[in-house]
């Protein structure tokens, strides 16, 4: 298995649970094709270590105190980090999976995943492919079908981003204000936000709409 000509994949483990960290380090240490460069307990620490350790792959937990996994993914995307991320999480909601993939995660694994699948995923992502574990993939597909925004909703969302009121949107689209309100509520629901500002922010973050400069 061990090929001395190929450099071992450098890995950064990001998880706030010491049990997980310790377990992962122990397990991955037994495999020469991967090399654990270090571990971080929080999102902030992870971002700091990324520059230092230059990992190829980041094994990232989503739920952490402070900066969440999604935030880390967004930050990585922003500073065009060379590392690729595999989300390694315990049970998460559909929305989290969806948002993690939207934020640029290359892989998605559950923590009860087998050792074999984990190594397979690391290899795949290192090779530039995606790896999303079976159960998650099915739910992700469903989530994408269920609540992606409709064309009309996208249209309205982009108008909201320009700062139009419901009434103005209604006038522009020649529909009643009530209908606009219904659409807006459905947008809030799908984006899981509480108000229009947040809706626009999330929509921009997730790349659903582009800001015209």
């Amino acid at each position, binding site marked *: 298995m061990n090929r001395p000509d190929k450099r071992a994949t450098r890995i950064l483990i990001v998880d706030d649970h010491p049990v*997980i960290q310790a*377990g992962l380090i122990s397990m991955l240490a037994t495999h020469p094709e991967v090399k654990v460069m270090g571990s971080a307990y929080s999102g902030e620490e992870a971002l700091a270590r990324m520059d230092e350790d230059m990992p190829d792959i980041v094994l990232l937990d989503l739920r952490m105190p402070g900066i969440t996994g999604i935030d880390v993914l967004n930050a990585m995307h922003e500073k065009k980090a060379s590392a690729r991320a595999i989300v390694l999480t315990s049970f998460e909601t559909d929305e989290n999976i969806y948002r993690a993939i939207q934020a640029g995660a290359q892989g998605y694994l559950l923590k009860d995943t087998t050792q074999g699948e984990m190594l397979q995923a690391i290899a795949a992502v290192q090779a530039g492919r995606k790896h999303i574990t079976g159960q998650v993939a099915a739910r992700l597909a469903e989530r994408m079908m269920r609540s992606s925004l409709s064309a009309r909703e996208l249209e309205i969302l982009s108008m909201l981003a320009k700062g139009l009121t419901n009434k103005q949107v209604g006038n522009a689209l020649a529909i009643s204000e009530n209908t606009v309100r219904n659409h807006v509520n459905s947008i809030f629901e799908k984006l899981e936000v509480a108000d229009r500002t947040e809706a626009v922010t999330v929509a921009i973050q997730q790349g659903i709409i582009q800001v015209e400069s």
Partner: protein
Amino acid sequence: MGVRSKTRRLILIVLAVCFLAGLGTAGTLLYLHSSTRGLPYHDSFAMGKADEWRAFGGTWAVYEGGMRNDSDERGAKLMAGSAYWTNYVLEADIKLLGEDGDAGLVIRARDAEEGVDSYSGYYAGLRTRDNQLTLGLADHGWQEYEDKPIPHGVQAFQWYHLKLLAYGCDVVASATFPLQGGQTTTAVVQDRDCLKAGGIGLRSYSSGGVWRNVRVHAATAADLQTMLTGQSTREITTNQPFWNGTSIFGSGSLPSHVHPEPALAEAAVQPISSLRMVTSSRPVIATVRGVVALSSPALYVQDSTGGVGVVAESIPPLKVGDEVLVTGQVKVRDYSASLVHARVELLWTRTPVAPISVTAGQAATGSFAATFVEVEGIFTGASQTAQGTPVLNLAAGQQAFRALVENSRGGVLARKLRRGSQLRLRGVCVVDPAETHNLTPFVLLLPSADDVEVVAGPPWWNTRHAVISGFVVLLLAFVGHLIYSTVEKWRLKAVADERELLAHEMHDTLAQSFAGLGFQLQAIRNRIPINMPVVQEQLELACDLVRHSHVEARRQITMLRAESIESAGLGAPLESCARHMLEGGDVKVEALEEGDPRSMPLRIKDTLFRIGQEALANAVRHASPSRIRILACYSDRSVSLTIEDDGCGFEQRSDGKGFGVRGMQRRAATIGAIMAIATSPGQGTRVVVTAPLPRHGTLNIWTTLLWKRLRSRSIYE
């Protein structure tokens, strides 16, 4: 800063309002307690008004510009004025209506009740028995201070001018008899522990009397001096001729007042009831003897057989209870007779006749025409005659009747009575169409406003109160329901929050530890040399066990997460719950709902959801089905939930243990639901839970039902 100044302004406003309110209250109190409020006072008996007076016994009524008390009652009083008047003069013209009694004025009166000396105040009166002016203090007992003989005696049916002054602790009374030289008699008392303040009163003791020109004005020390020196002699002014009865009745002492019974009349006297039998077309003259039942507004006389109305050109001053001889022309109407062009002679005074207690039905027959009766009835409203006399409309059963009250105090009475009150009225029953106007079978002529007695107030349960109570009950029910549902919602919310917290905790500790442990075991297993197959195998098993536990913990966390409360029905949350458990496997899940889930109480919904979760978890874990069906049926009376799978089923154990069945049954029991499991190996499993809904329902259900009923009716009509 802004908030503080706003608060300060608010406090200032509140203080200002409090100050103004206090000032207003103090001003009102000062005004009410003022010793000169309403002074000077002059009666309005001439206009037939006496609203400000309150009677304590007697039959007080305004008649010909004077306040008249016909009754022989001992210590009948009529009170008025402010309890805070201190120094003032009360004066009035007084006429006694009988011998052997006294009549006079009261000042500084308080705490009046019915009874001889049941008041506190100073009384000055003219007494016929010993021809004296008497002055004394009544304080729920009588203490006579001064008796001064009046020169020419005290005569009945004569006007006297009486003046009573209180200044400090000096009380002075003076009586003037204007006819014979206008001599003034003065009685003076200096009372050390005097009564300080009080209102005014008219009072008679067994003689009855008439009072007029009642005046009050504030007194000064000069007034006191004037009265003490006896210089105050005032001519009595009246535009009414004095009744020159002295020549007829004699004067002064008791025997002389009684007219000698004419011997001639005795033979011709006939019983009053016989007057009705007169049928002759030519005028019949009859003479009757009887007691005066009513002297104003019309004269009614009755004997033991019945009563008769009397119309005469001139009538001597009579009072109720006088025995009279009446000769006149008989006039017979439908049910009653009257004597017209009559000559009335006063024989002697007697006690008034007691009223005969009859029902309204009996009075309506006419048998008691012109008789003094007592009738009970329910007050239905007040009106007025064309002359402005207050009329009380009454009903007793099906029988309606009316009562005419004398004008002066009847108006107040008519305003004060509440509709629906039960009244007992004493008056002369009149069936003559001239008085009844054929509106009611009879009318009662009441001698005074005091002949109306309220037996019982109106019944509390009238339409208005019923409607108000209905509204209050509805409102209370609504508020109660609101509070109940809010509390219930809070409780469930708290439970859901607790569950969420628990799920969070489990996720953070248990699940993570299982995962870490799994990795650690895997690491150990990786390092075990290949030549130790037994250890490897055992570690493999341990890894599997940990993974299995991890999966189980995740399922528990899913189940703990609250999802049921937000949605209306059970189908959607259970379906999503099933999908979570299956995690994208190729098992078909279908959810169906029948009926309207809105009427389901939260508690029942939550419990059913938990049972459904458990059943789904069992199906996913043990049955390996290819299809799962969720069916929720809502009706007005019950909710039933069915979870069905086509998996391997299981052998039902007799004790009902295993597969969480016991937990499900315990949950079902808390809401009184019945749970049935149909399964056998290879046949799939069906769990049916049926929960009864509370029968009383909620306000929502009531309104829904009402709406449905109304709509269905309007469709069919």
